[in-house]
């Protein structure tokens, strides 16, 4: 069934179809309509789940951990300051191997206060051991919610799917809402492999001596790596039922491209238009969308970029004192390749600064003109 809905409601529908059982949440702009819609689904019985509005995001994630350990399929959503406040619990969820799924609406962090879009919030949770997916459209958002449960429950690691504040969260698009029976086929009701159970007791959060501790951490990394295979299969299975798939990355017009622009989220859509225009002018430019950020899709990225002369990475976040975060990841992925492009880091779109076709064109032109990438990132737009 095709329905016109905002990105936030695409999340809510994905959650409903995934038959989530517990939803603890705390409101924050621009996430609120996700959980308001869910609280209504829970109240009117569209979703047989328990919703609770707790007293902070830290409590929300702690409550998710409890619910997931008790064997329930568990979801929450947040943004920005809320995600930052959850940080401690994000590590905990990973360490306890709980397949919680969360939607994060990408919003800038304060101060200065700002409710608009950038990716600093989720990227600064990079090392918490959560899988991360960056979505480009409302359809992708809904589908990724369902896929996330499928992957997380297989590898026993939590997943964060990310959507851009306002550009997706509050923008309506036509979304093909899958049939509940088809989703049930794809994602059967949740049977926790390990859970708190009086008949078969398990303990979560015990103390481990150094050898075991490191062993546990090693196991997390193994399963993160395994998550690539699992996510690939989850995407293929999804395609066979719903006729849509997304891959870890998407290479657009990369064939024979001298310069490839790399970016994520809704900027990808704008960039496609720019690439089409430039291709019409005969310029050899391409685009690489990064959808899966953790685990990092090395093979896809290397495969797409290795033959280009130059790569321009458009980041909507910065690691202060270094460079754009996606740029760093791309650089490190390419470093050991025998043939590799020059990699340029561009920072723009912070705090909701509009990333227009003009800005994207400027970035591409700038990278074409510079012989060598400067050590520091190049900032585009903004006032001081």
């Amino acid at each position, binding site marked *: 069934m095709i329905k016109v809905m905002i990105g936030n409601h695409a999340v809510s529908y994905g959650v409903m179809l995934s038959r989530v059982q517990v939803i603890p949440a705390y409101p924050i702009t621009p996430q*609120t309509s996700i959980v*308001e819609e869910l*609280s209504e689904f829970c109240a009117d019985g569209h979703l047989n789940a328990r*919703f609770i509005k707790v*007293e*902070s995001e830290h409590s929300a994630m702690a409550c998710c951990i409890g619910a997931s350990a008790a064997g329930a399929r568990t979801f929450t959503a947040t943004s920005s300051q809320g995600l930052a406040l959850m940080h401690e619990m994000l590590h905990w969820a990973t360490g306890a191997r709980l397949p919680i799924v969360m939607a994060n609406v990408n919003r800038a962090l304060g101060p200065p206060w700002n409710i608009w879009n950038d990716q600093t919030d989720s990227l600064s949770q990079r090392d918490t051991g959560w899988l991360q997916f960056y979505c480009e459209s409302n359809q992708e958002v809904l589908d990724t919610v369902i896929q996330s449960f499928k992957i997380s429950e297989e590898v026993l690691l939590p997943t964060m799917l990310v959507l851009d504040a306002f550009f997706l969260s509050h923008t309506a698009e036509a979304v093909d809402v899958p049939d509940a029976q088809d989703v049930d086929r794809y994602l059967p009701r949740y049977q926790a492999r390990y859970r708190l159970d009086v008949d078969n007791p398990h303990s979560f959060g015990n103390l481990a001596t150094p050898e075991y501790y490191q062993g546990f951490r090693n196991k997390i990394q193994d399963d993160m790596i395994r998550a690539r295979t699992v996510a690939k299969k989850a995407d293929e299975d999804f395609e066979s039922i719903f006729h849509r798939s997304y891959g870890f990355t998407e290479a657009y017009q990369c064939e024979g491209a001298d310069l490839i622009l790399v970016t994520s989220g809704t900027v990808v859509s704008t960039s496609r238009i720019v690439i089409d225009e430039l291709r019409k002018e005969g310029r050899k430019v391409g685009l690489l969308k990064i959808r899966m950020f953790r685990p990092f899709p090395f093979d896809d990225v290397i495969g797409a970029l290795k033959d280009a002369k130059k790569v321009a990475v458009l980041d909507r976040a910065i690691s202060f004192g270094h460079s754009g975060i996606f740029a760093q990841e791309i650089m490190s992925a390419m470093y050991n390749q025998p043939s590799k492009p020059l990699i340029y880091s561009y920072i723009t779109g912070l705090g909701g600064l509009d990333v227009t076709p003009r800005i994207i064109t400027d970035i591409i032109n700038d990278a074409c003109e510079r012989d060598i990438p400067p050590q520091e990132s190049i900032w585009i737009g903004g006032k001081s």
Partner: protein
Amino acid sequence: MVKEVTKLIHKYLRHDKKFPHVWCPGCGNGVILGALIRAIDRLGLEKDEIVLASGIGCSGRMPVYVDFNTLHATHGRALTFATGIKLAKSSLTVITVMGDGDATAIGGNHFIHAARRNLNITAIIINNQIYGMTGGQSSPTTPYGCYASTATYGHIEHAFSIAELAKTAGASFVGRGTVYHIHLLEKLIKHAIVKRGFSVVEVISNCHIQFGRRNQMEDPVTMLEWMRDHSVTVEKAKDMEAEALKGFFTIGILADVEKPIYTEEYTNIQKRAKLLNPL
């Protein structure tokens, strides 16, 4: 012609910075800001001696508009920022403004501990019984059975009494006012600022947009009338039977006790430690 009282308010505003403000027409926050400014003016305090710190919420926007030392902190943490300010510069008059969600949900822990510690800080808590800024989700003071955007079929949790909580946690001064009883409100704020110790003023305010519209009180006047009709002064309540008080809330001074403040205790303990352990 500009009225005298308006001129007085204008003296304290940052005209060039942040207008128009974010509050909805008829919001109680403006009434409370007016009372705060008049209280400060009448106490003869210098603008530069005052710190106004807030968390996040519609209430949290208040410091943005006034020409004091201001700090727009994170959601729920106004009192922790204020604690730091008091430790670093205890001569400043530190006032915090918080919403009910801000002070008693995400910041609830800080609230009880600030009261227990008895730092010389004034906490104004604007209780509109809802999350205003984020669009009407239930807060710890949303009454049982009322409607909110996360309680579309009625709220199933029970509300805190902010003033009672403050009293029990050890605040030196606790007052409750409303945006209807404007003179009382100004008096309570003055009292709270002058009081040495942790002072709380709970202000019952109207969010007719997020709370009122969902609860059959969609305009500010109805909400103010509700405050008028459901409040009793502490003095009057003393002579009333418990049965007769049902459905009413008390306004006025609910607690006013003398006890040493944290920074004084700190100085004293340092003196004692020095005597016992001379350099």
